[in-house]
Every structure is written in C-alpha cells, then in structure tokens.
C-alpha cells in the first residue's frame, strides 16, 4: 500500500506527513504527529473524545481521513492554551471539578469552545444538545454543563 504525502496546517503550523489511505485524521494526529491529546474512544463518531476543529468546524477526527487533509487546517486540544495561560474553559473545568478520569475532557473542551464561539450565551438545553455527541461516563455531565455555562457568563462579562 503506497502512502500519500499530505501538507496541512496543524495548530497553526505547517506540517507534512505520509499516511496510508486507511488512516484517519485521529490516527495521523496521534501516531504520525505525536499529538496524543485527542483521544480514541470508539473510532465510529459516537463518543466525541477525538473532537477537533477542521477549518473552524467541529468534527470527530476519527471520521476524517488523513488523506483528506491536503491544504486544510486543524486545531486540537494542544493549541487551546496560549503559552502559560489556560483557556477560560480549561481553567473553569479545573475549578469546577468538571473532570474525573479526564479521558473525555479534551473532546469536551474542544466542543465547548466551538459552541461558545458560535453562541456566547447558550441555554442549558442548547449546551446539553451541543455536547450530546461527547460521552462522559464519570461525571454524569452535571459539572461539565455548569462549567460551560459559567465560562460563557464569565466570558460575556469580561467583554
């Protein structure tokens, strides 16, 4: 199986990689680019642990092929904090204990960030539906939903 040569942008940096046609974007991030922050919980688009944004749009990276990435741009959990400063969602997740095992956390953070970019003032119900594609088995979602709503309020307040 010959490999494809792909040039793409990952977290703002130009990268090149070789990938075989079966590898997903998630495989490429984790195995070829060593960005293991995006997690694999199902590889079928059901758990959201692999959430990234592709050209600004929230996707499951396990449902995108590595070869589809030519010329495109992906943002992962690894680029969410800037320098030593955590994103307000990351900070709030810590303070609100919105993670237990933490395995779903990167996916939730990426998805929640994308929600707040589209809708800075979501209702509880909108937040629950937006995040319905992200599974968490530890928390019962309560603290996650609260953390997202509180961050939204904080971010609105600081503008």
């Amino acid at each position, binding site marked *: *199986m010959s490999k494809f040569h792909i040039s793409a942008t990952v977290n703002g940096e130009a990268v090149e990689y070789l990938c*075989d046609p*079966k590898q997903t974007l998630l*495989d490429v991030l*984790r*195995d070829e680019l*060593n*960005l*293991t*922050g*995006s*997690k*694999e*919980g*199902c*590889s*079928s688009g*059901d*758990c959201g*642990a692999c959430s990234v944004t592709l050209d600004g749009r929230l996707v499951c990276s396990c449902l995108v092929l590595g070869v589809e990435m030519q010329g495109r741009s992906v943002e*992962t*959990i*690894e680029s*969410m*904090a800037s320098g030593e400063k*955590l994103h307000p969602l*990351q900070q709030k*997740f*810590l*303070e*609100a*204990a919105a*993670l*237990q*095992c*933490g*395995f*779903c*956390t*990167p996916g939730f*953070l990426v998805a929640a960030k994308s929600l707040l970019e589209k809708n800075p003032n979501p209702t509880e*119900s909108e*937040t*629950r*539906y937006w*995040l*319905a594609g*992200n*599974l*968490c*088995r*530890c*928390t*019962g*979602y*309560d*603290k*996650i*939903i*609260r953390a997202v709503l509180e961050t939204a309020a904080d971010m609105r307040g600081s503008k």
Partner: protein
Amino acid sequence: MAGYEGKAFKWVGTRPVRPDGVDKVTGRANYGADQNLAGQLTGRILRSPHAHAKILSIDTSKAEKLPGVKAVITGKDFPQMHRGVLPGDEGVNFHYLSSNIMARDKALYDGHAVAAVAATSAAIAEEALALIDVKYEVLPHVIDVDDALKPGAPLLHDDIFTTGVNPKPDKPSNTVQRVHMALGDANAAFKDADIIVERSFKSKTVHQGYIEPHAVVAEWCEDGQARIWCSSQGHFMVRALTARLLNMEVAQVRVMPAEIGGGFGGKTIIFIEPTAVLLARKAERPVRIVMSRDEVFRATGPAPGSSIDVKIGAKKNGMLVAAVGEFRFQAGAFPGSPLGPACMAAFGPYALAHVTSAGYEAVTNRPLCFSYRAPGAPLASFAVESVIDEIAQKLNIDPMEMRIMNGSKEGTQMVYGPKLKAVGNLECLKAIKNHPINKIPLGPNQGRGLAAGFWFNLGGQSSAVVNIAEDGTATIMTGSPDIGGSRASMALMAAEVLGIDYSKVRPIVGDTSAVGFCEITHGSRVTFATGMAIIQAAEDVVLQCRQRVAAMWEVDVEAVVWEDGHARPAGANAGEQKPLSLAQIAARAARTGGPLVGKAAINAGGAGPAFAVHICDVEVDPETGGVKILRYVASQDAGKAIHPSYVEGQIQGGAVQGIGWALNEEYIYGADGRLQNSGFLDYRIPVASDLPMIEPIILEIPNPGHPFGVRGVGEVGIVPPLAALANAISRATGVRMMDLPMTPPKILAAIDAKK
C-alpha cells in the same frame, strides 16, 4: 491513630484544583494508548465469531509470511496453568484466567480471543488476522442464565461442579455455586404478614462503558524482564497476574501505571497484557495493543444479567415481617459474577428479623461477567426496592415513612451475620424527606420515585511514602491509580497532617518497582485505605520531626508538639524555644539524621458501609413510552468528604450510570449467540441531553474505623437509581416494570396491556 476527633480541619473538606488537572485539560496526560516506544509494533487480536465452538485447528502460516508481520501467537504459546484453584491463590482460577485471555480448545463466546499478531502497522496487522485460518466445530450455546441452569443445557466446562450444595454433585454443570444466607426463619414468619408481595425481575448484561478502551504497551528485555505500560485499576494486580500466567517471577515484571480513562470495576482484571508481552517477546520489539470499542463490548468483563425473585411480607402499618430473595446471576464464560455480595447487600437498608438471601451463579456463552461499581448490589436492590415500593402503594402509605420505619441503623444485624456500626441510612432518608423536591406538584403522566441502596466499602492493603524535600515541600507516593481525583484527596490528607500548604504537596502514582504494594482501586477503598496509609506516613514524618527537634532542644520528644506545620514546645515546662517549621527542619535534615522519609504499609480494616437514597421525578410519554427525567436528587453518606467536589462527582456519575442501566443499556444477542450492539451507537449510554442536573447531598456520619471518618464514596451511588426510576415510572403510569432496561417499547406495551 486518634487525635483528629473534634479538630477543625484546615485542608480536608476544601475544594482545591487537582494536582494532575492541568495535564488533563491540555491533553498532556498520558493514558494507556498514548505510550509510544521506539520501534513499537501494533498488536491485534483475532476473535471467535461463534458463541461456542470447538477449535479444531489454527493455521497461522500465511499470516506469518506476510511482510511486516513480526509475531503470531495462539493459545499454544501460553504456559499451561494448573486446573482448579490452588490454596493461596485467593480464589483465582489461573487456568480460567489464561483461557479467557486466549482460548485453548474451545471458544466460549463471540469475541473470545483465539490468536494475536504483531506487525509494523495496523493495516498489516489487520490483513494478517484475515490470513489466519481457524477451523471451528460450532457447538450449541446458551446465553440466558435461567436456560444455563436447566439440566441438559449446553455444557461450557467439564470441571465445574456446583459448590455450596450437599451432596456434592458428581456431574459437571453450568451451575457454579449456590449461595444461601438466612437470619431467623422467613418462611415461617410470612404467616404474620398482612400483605405479601412476590415478584420476578429480569435484567440484561450491561457494560461499565468507560470511554477509554483497554490499552497496553509491552516490552521484553534481553535479560528476561518485561516492562508494561497500561491503564488499569491496579498495576500491582497487572503485575501479579501477568507474571503468574507467563510463569515469571513477580519482580521480573515492572508495570508503569498510565492515566486511566475510567474503569468502574472493568479494569480490575487483565485481558490483553500477557498477550502483548508474549508478542513483544516473540517479535523482539515493543508491542502496543489497543482494544477497539467493539472488542471492549465483546471481550472484557461487563456486569451480569440476572433473574431474581423477591418476596416480602409486611404488617398493615408497613412494618416488614419477613423477606426472601432468590438471585440467579449470569457468570459469562467463566465463574466470577458477584452473587455473594448481591445476596449480602440486597436487604442492606432494612432491619429484618427474618430474611433469607440465596442464589445461583451459572456460566453462559458470554464474555466474562465481572465487577461493575458496587458489584451485584444494583440488581439485587432493584428487585427489593421495587417490591418495597409496591407494598407501600398497596398499603397506601408513604414509601419514605415505610423506609424510615424499617430502616437499618447502628446495631441492626445484617443477613450475612455482623451488626452495623454507626451508619447513615436514616440520615440519608431524612435528607431526602426534607428536600424541597417533595413540595413540587406533579403534572399528568408524571411520577416521583424513591429508593435506597447499601454497599460495604472495602479496606485492604496499601502502602505510601512521604518524602520531604530540602525546602520542606513534600512528594507523596502511592501505588493506587487515580481514577477520579484521588491524587487531590491524598494531597489534602497529607497537607492536613503535615500542616503545610496543599500546593506544597505533590502526589505521585508510583510504578510497581518504585512504591510498596497497593491493592486495586476498587470497592471505594482508595480514599479510605490508601488515604489511611498516607495519613500514617505523614504522621511518621511528623514524629521524626518532633524527635529531631527534641534532640536539638535537648528535651523529651513529648515536650515537642506539632501544630500548624511547626514543631513547638509542648508547654511552659518545655522551655522557651522558637517554633521550627517543616522547611526549617528539612533544611537541617542532613545534620539531624538524614532524609525525612515517612512510610506506611498497612492492611486496613474498619471500612464503614455506605448508604445512599435517591429520589427522582419522571414524565412518561403515553404515546411513545419514553421516559424524561425531570428532577434527580441523590443523598449519600461519605463519612467525611475529603474533596467534596469529587465526592459530588462520584454521586452524580454513579447516579447517571444507574439511569443508563435502568432505561437504555443492554447487551442484545441474536439467536446465533452473537452480540448485536457492540458500539456506542447501539449500546446507548446516557448523553448530556438525556439528563437534568443531578443534585448531590453529602452527609457526613463519620466512620469510626478511619482517623478522619472516611467511608469511601465510589460505589453506592449506582445502587438506588434502577429502582428509583422503576418506582417513579410506576407512579406515573400505574404499571410496574420488572424487566430492565425499561425501554419505551416495553413501557408502552405495559401501558397498553393495562388498558
């Protein structure tokens, strides 16, 4: 170990950010699948498509010849284990354990491993699996526990002779064991009852559903040692079992604990580690195996399905007079279901003079049924709490008052023998009784349900080390994997005893060669038992500090007290000395005897049982049978909440797992014995939009067996939801659901049948 009663805590009970938190919100934390060693190969496992089949032959020659394939193994590569349980093996049947990890002469369930390969890429490994030629002779299979118990059912093993029956059977069967325990004489006492309700309940296999699939990286070294990186609920358990199954000395295996992405009991045993080690040994390169979600469902250790009969008798005023429970649990393809604990826990919330708890466990052609949060208790409790509620309905009395009237408390004798010490059952009930939810009026098709739950909590072996650095900061190390914030709890307890700031304590989960033995993270034992080890190790440091300061001040050690992180003179007689801080003492460590290292290695007894009471409001759509949860409140006795936010998280997470168990989750098998829903799309766990907020109420009735009063909080929260929902649905619709999960079609059919 006393001395903490009545003391105001400075750190315990606060809610600081967890020490491992930043790694986990930035993607930096390393979980099982994140390990990447130079030259690492991809391991994949070939699994049986049949529920029950004799393996006639396995031809791996084509796979071995595929370029990029570096190793292929089958059951033949595994050492033979002794059949049966040897004395000293703590009840583990290593022949079964090994046969579950790699099938020998028979495949016993859809998904049973039959061969494994290691190759230079995932694509090649998968191609190789397709080239392995396994010849099967398909055998009749049995999936349901009641069917498996019948004489003439397809036999899985020729060496299972039912234990607990007399005379000892001379023929093998699927029935693993009979458990029977009784208090008083329930059958005779039923004659005093004004009302008797007897019901049968069924439930399906459910999975723990941790989001992180099992993952391992193994490396074989030329000197015969193995190194393993994996996520588990206990790396010492992984070490012990892997060494034993591969005939290795325990110290030749080193296991590094990765972060664990959920376990809930499902990672308290091994499935792939020996396979990875054997592949690595054969390939002479490190091998990583990461299970797919399909493999996780088909071939790990879900919770058993059950078939249960419960009969309870009561007086007109609601006083219970007698109860009998008969619990039949699936075991999967090998023994291991939590039947004993289920029998013991079933009637835990009630004071009963006459009660019998008994049951059978039977092997079936399913994956090994293993531990899931408060193992056995949710199913037993679902049946008991449903019957209690029905009695209250029939007698037209308040189900809360009935529970309080009959509630177990300090001094109540349990069906398994001992009496309860101080527990929080009544307090949990009263907290729910006094909650404002009870005042909210219910609309049409709405109902309110209530249920109580019990779990033992466990103690056991733990070790801990507290190292004080030159500047007085502390590194604390245990061997208990942090599955939901336990590093934070450990650091809080150490900070409390040492009297230093929480931020000056760094907790580490050490590997099997770096720290003393710790049992698995299960049974709600870590904050209790490993926490006790941390407290004792920190007390050890404090004692050493006092001794050193006493030597410097030339006084007796009793003349030096430890307060607020400082050594101080005990009183006026001890002389005029300036207090010395831990940092100051640490700076003088070299000159006063060397490094300050506190240690503790314990086998903790005194675990205190946990109780929980949940109440919920539901609305049932009469057109679809769909259940919407409107409100949910959960009370639980934590003994002492070390980090209340993570205690709340355990309560909320347990409740939601129970909600999934009650409403959606089930293993669905076809007539061919194959699992039909081995993915999250079809095995649907609750998602955010299914749920309301879960309001936790933490109660603190101190456990007399722990210096800070800790009980452990991980498990009991999953016990009440099943019945709480069934009871709410019953009050919303007038139909009682006795078959889990309570899916819309089942509820609709029940409503239609009543019309």
